[in-house]
């Protein structure tokens, strides 16, 4: 059985129900289960008997200046009650403005104003759910001139002030670092390691854009060697953490996704062996 988990997508649900593949856990997008009833909810109820479930939200919009949508937060609390997930996570981003939901993880300026807002939203969420959540670092394509904090410093402050944990998305760090000319390993070193409760891995796409290269967080292919390298670096620094492979677009057969989860286990083991060897030699 792998320790790593997989993002469960609708096209794989029947096969997972029938075959119950040996994976560490299943993660779903919370919003997809916010219906009153229906087969999706029923399938997840069945699967939670055999698997640890992680609820990963893309719509709470912790960075929204207009605050959280109470109805959405109530529905999330209902899911937490129904499915008893071992992890609940959301993103450091916003997607709601003027009560319109934009279905993307939009970037925040890293200012004191934004920090105060995000901390308040995270606290409100944690109080409503009655538990800690993890907040994920985003992929981004722009930065803001007014930012006064680096992204990892901002995340560290959010965790320290709100008591939330962090979901370290290694692919997002790779993408963001490449897009903005940052040092990805220095980014990881700047995060409070104890706060990291989960790691995400995924594939990204390279695009030529006006004479430069832009990395797009596409979740449409296998994890690249650069991201594996960064994952090994993170594991060597943090030790093992629940690790998830995400794949959302151009979804492959389930076996390929399971293979990625197995690869994540191998990479983590290799990283710990190397780290142990280094410590032993020192």
């Amino acid at each position: 059985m792998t320790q790593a988990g997989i993002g469960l997508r609708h096209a794989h649900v029947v096969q997972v129900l029938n075959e119950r593949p040996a994976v560490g856990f299943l993660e779903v997008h919370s919003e997809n289960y916010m219906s009153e009833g229906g087969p999706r909810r029923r399938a997840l109820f069945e699967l939670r008997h055999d698997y640890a479930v992680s609820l990963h939200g893309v719509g709470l919009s912790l960075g929204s200046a207009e605050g959280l949508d109470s109805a959405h937060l109530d529905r999330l609390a209902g899911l937490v009650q129904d499915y008893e997930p071992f992890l609940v996570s959301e993103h450091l981003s916003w997607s709601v403005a003027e009560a319109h939901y934009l279905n993307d993880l939009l970037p925040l300026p890293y200012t004191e104003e934004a920090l105060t807002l995000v901390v308040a939203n995270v606290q409100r969420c944690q109080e409503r759910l009655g538990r800690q959540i993890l907040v994920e670092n985003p992929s981004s394509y722009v930065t803001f001139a007014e930012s006064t904090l680096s992204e990892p410093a901002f995340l560290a402050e959010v965790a320290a002030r709100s008591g939330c944990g962090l979901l370290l998305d290694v692919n997002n760090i790779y993408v963001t670092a490449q897009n903005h000319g940052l040092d990805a390993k220095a980014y990881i070193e700047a995060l409070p390691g104890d706060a990291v409760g989960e790691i995400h891995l995924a594939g990204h796409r390279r695009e030529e854009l006006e004479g430069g290269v832009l990395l797009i967080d596409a979740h449409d292919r296998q994890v690249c060697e650069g991201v594996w390298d960064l994952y090994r670096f993170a594991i060597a620094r943090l030790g093992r953490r629940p690790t998830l492979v995400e794949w959302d677009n151009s979804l492959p057969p389930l076996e390929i996704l399971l293979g990625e989860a197995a690869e994540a286990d191998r990479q983590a083991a290799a990283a710990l062996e190397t780290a142990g060897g280094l410590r032993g030699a020192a």
Partner: protein
Amino acid sequence: MALHDQQRAFAATLLTADAADPAGLGITADGREAARLAVYRNNVQVSLIGVLEAAFPVTAKLCGLDNFRFAASRYLRGQPPAEARLLTYGDGFPAWLSAFKPAAGQPYLAEMARLEWARNEALFAADADPLDASLLSSLPPEAIGDLVLIPHPAARLLQSGFSLHAAWQSGEVPKAGAETLLITRPDLQVLQSALAPGAGVLAAALFDGRSLTEAAEQALAVAPDLDLQACLLHHLTSGSFSRYQLPTPT
């Protein structure tokens, strides 16, 4: 700029403008701000068009995919999602499509979209056990006529001027002609059937809260030969109703 104003301006350029305009957003990207902002704009629009395509696959096929995507892109500008629960996104699309000028010559498109949305609602509605026929047989026969049946949370009745049922199955252009469609989900599967005219009147009256006797009278008025028992059996096996009420004694 205050964060709230910044997010409103950011949202507007992603959703409503014809091109992503980075001016005034305070973003920096080495002189490539417009191209970078366009990535977000593309993410937002392509993903929401994809949500509508997934909810209205037969409508999209009847439209032609390019035409459907164009219509969807116009719809989402005027009616972006009101909540993050995207399984509800598209509820206003059938009505919007019926008023969309480029589709004026194909009124069946909005009708097919209505059917697909009814199926979508049925899929995600609350679960409930369908009414059990044995419950009815446990009642004294003289009480049956006064029964009011309560529609199952997933049950929908749809009346159209087109033969949607056959067209939904074949993917071909619906023919004109009145039709009443019953959409239900007794358990995990969405079921769909076309009702004959008398059966349609009966179903409409029952869904409207009429007693069995009243509904039967209305139906027999338009279809004197209607087999009421067969109609009721069809509703029971389809899962149209989940409960019943007896009139309170006066």
